[in-house]
C-alpha cells in the first residue's frame, strides 16, 4: 500500500495536545487529614495526574477540571483559584 495515503488515524504520544497543566484556572488542594485513600480521585482523573501511591498531584498535566473534587466522598479536595506567579 502507498504510504503517502493520508488516513484519519492517530497514535497516542505524551503531551500531543501540549502540556495540559497550562490550561488550569483553578487547582485542587488535597487535605490529607480527610482523605481515606479510596482512590476515587485517581480513578476519575482524566489526565492520570494523581499518583496511585501517595495521591500526589502532577501539576504539569492537571488541567484543573475539578472532577476529583466533585467525586471525592470525603470532600478532601477543594478547588482554589490559580494565581499567576
Amino acid at each position, binding site marked *: *500500500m502507498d504510504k503517502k495515503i493520508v488516513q484519519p488515524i492517530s497514535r497516542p504520544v505524551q503531551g500531543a495536545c501540549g502540556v495540559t497543566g497550562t490550561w488550569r484556572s483553578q487547582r485542587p488542594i488535597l487535605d490529607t487529614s480527610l482523605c481515606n485513600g479510596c482512590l476515587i480521585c485517581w480513578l476519575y482523573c482524566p489526565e492520570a495526574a494523581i499518583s496511585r501511591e501517595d495521591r500526589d498531584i502532577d501539576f504539569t498535566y492537571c488541567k484543573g477540571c475539578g472532577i476529583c473534587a466533585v467525586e471525592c466522598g470525603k470532600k478532601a479536595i477543594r478547588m482554589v483559584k490559580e494565581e499567576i506567579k
Partner: protein
Amino acid sequence: MSKVFGSGNTACAMAVKDADVDFVAAYPITPQTAVAEKIAAYIAQGIMDANYLPVESEHSAASAIAAASAVGARVFTATASQGLLYMHEILHYAAGGRLPLVMANVNRAVNMPWCLYADHQDAVSQRDTGWIQLFAASNQEIYDSILLAFKVAEEVQIPVMINYDGFLVSHSMMPFETLDENKIKEYLPPYDPSWRLHPQWGGTFGNVTFSEQYVPYRESLTRDVKRAGELIIRCAREFEELTGRWHGGYFDVYRPEDASFFLLSMGSMGKEMELAVDLLRQEGIPAAGLRLRVFCPFPKEELSALLPTGTNLLVFDRNLVYGSAAGVLLQESRAALYDRRDEIRIAGISVGLGGEDLPASLLADKAREMIQEVKK
C-alpha cells in the same frame, strides 16, 4: 477455472467467495437478495470461511463492514436502491476513513413511486461520496470486477462500488468462468493493512479535526480518487495478462472506426447499444458505442481523447438530474468537453427509467432524433 451457468447475482456471490473475504454484512433487498442469500449459504455450508452478520438495516450493514475493515478484515456488502440511499451517511464515512470496502449495488429505481426495476438513480446519487464506481454489463464482468475491486480498493484505500442493472443483469442467466484459487492468490494477495484498530496498537480512528487538518484529508481524497483511474486500468490489464479476459478500460468502445456519432451509456444499455450501432451503421450512419465502465472517477480526458474534432456525442442517461436536460452523464460529458464546445456537439436524453425496456430499435430511434438535434 470452472465454467458456470448462472445469474449476475450468482457471479457476484461466487466472486466474493473466491476473493477470500473475511466479513460480510448485508440486508436483503430486491433485486440484490440472491447475493445476500448465496453468501450466507456458502458460509453456512462451510465452503466460505468468513463471518456473516445478519443486520437489521443497510445503515448497519455499511457501518458493520466499515468497522470490520478498520480492524483489518477484507469486507463486502451488497445492496440496491433505497438500501444504498440508507447507507449514504456511512459511504462518506468509509471514503473519508480511507477504508477499502467493496460493495455490489444492483441498480434499481428509487422510490416514490415504488419501483423495482433497473435505473441508475441510486448509484449516481452517490457520486459525491468519494467512492470509486464501476459499472458492469455481463455476469463475467461482474465476477472479474469484484476481484478487481478488492485489488484497487486495498491499494488506493478507497471503497469501490460495483454496479450492475437489476433483473436485466442480476437475474439473467449467462455462462461465466471463475478463476483458480492459485491465480486469485497471485492477483489478489491476502489483505495486509498498514494499520488496524487493535488494543495492542493503541491508536484511534476518525478523530475530531479542525480545518487545518480537515482540508488535507479532503484534498488527498479527491487527488487519490482521480489517480485511482489509472490504477483501475492497470489492474484490468494485469487481470487480462493473467486470464485473457478484458472488458474495456474506462470505456468499452464499439465500432469507433470513422465514427462521427458516439453513443454514450452505462450498464446493460451499453451492451444493447452495440446492436443499435449495428442498425445505424446498416443505414450508413457512422455510429459508435461508448459503454462507460468507470463512472467515478469520471474519465474526462479519456472521453475527450476518444472523440475526434467534428464528431458528436449522444448521451443516454438511465437517471435524471431534475430540472436539467437529462442526467448525470450528460452533465459530466458537457463539463469534460467544455473546452472543445466548438468542435464537438453534444445531445442527451434520459431513457430506461424504472426499467423501461430499451430494445436496440428504440435506442436507434432515439439516436436518430438526437442526430437531427445536433445537426441543427
